[in-house]
């Protein structure tokens, strides 16, 4: 019925990388906002530093919902205890590509690789598994990556 929330809203897992590149936290909050506006429930999985950056930036949880440890998320999905409709993996280094490949292998979620950083093109070349790649050279300013995400509109797919 129009105006009522769906019984089982779609879910999206945001897999954060190392937070050493500034744009990650900003783009994660932006993507969370866009997903929520599209009726998709975002769940964040990252290491302690990446998660804490988000939690401190959004103390009243206007944007953030569930936040979990990255290793726990991998274990839950690999052990078939939980899965998501879509998965966005933040990538700026080799480890990020490894996590994206892992999500592609263990999860049924539609996979998106969000690639950024000074040498984003080197990481893009390593992505040889099925996924939608959204990439931009973005380190301090999130705007190039925001533009790439807005053009891809993954929350519509």
């Amino acid at each position, binding site marked *: 019925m129009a105006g009522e929330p769906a019984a089982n809203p779609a879910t999206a897992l945001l897999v954060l*990388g190392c937070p050493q590149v500034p744009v990650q936290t900003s783009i994660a909050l932006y993507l969370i906002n866009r997903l929520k506006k599209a009726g998709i429930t975002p769940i964040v999985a990252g290491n302690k530093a990446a998660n804490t950056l988000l939690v401190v930036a959004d103390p009243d949880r206007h944007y953030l919902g569930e936040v979990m440890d990255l290793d726990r998320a991998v274990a839950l999905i690999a052990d078939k205890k939980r899965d998501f409709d879509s998965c966005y993996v933040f990538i700026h280094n080799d480890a990020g590509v*490894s996590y994206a490949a892992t999500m592609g292998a263990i999860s049924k979620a539609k996979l998106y690789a969000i690639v950024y950083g000074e040498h984003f093109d080197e990481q893009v070349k390593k992505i040889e598994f099925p996924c939608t790649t959204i990439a931009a050279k973005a380190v301090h300013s999130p705007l190039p990556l925001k533009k790439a995400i807005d053009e891809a509109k993954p929350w519509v797919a």
Partner: protein
Amino acid sequence: MGCVESLNYEIVLRDATFKESRDYIKAHFTEFIDVQPGFKVFDTHVIGLPPIAIGFEGNFIIFPFTKPCHGTFLLRVEDAKEAARLRALKK
């Protein structure tokens, strides 16, 4: 993957790319198996691009351990029981 901290491990490679780790295992260990991402070694789900190589050297298991900020480490851990369990997968 907190359990890795409790293992008595030796670091064979540190801050490597995933490919360097896989190439190292295949170049240095005659005995290895290929597994898929998420496969459990000890209580750790391995991370990486498939296939992921796990090497053997006697009772030692050599496997990749990836951390978001530090890349991939290649760890060497002695455990006869786990080595036997993994070797049995080759058959």
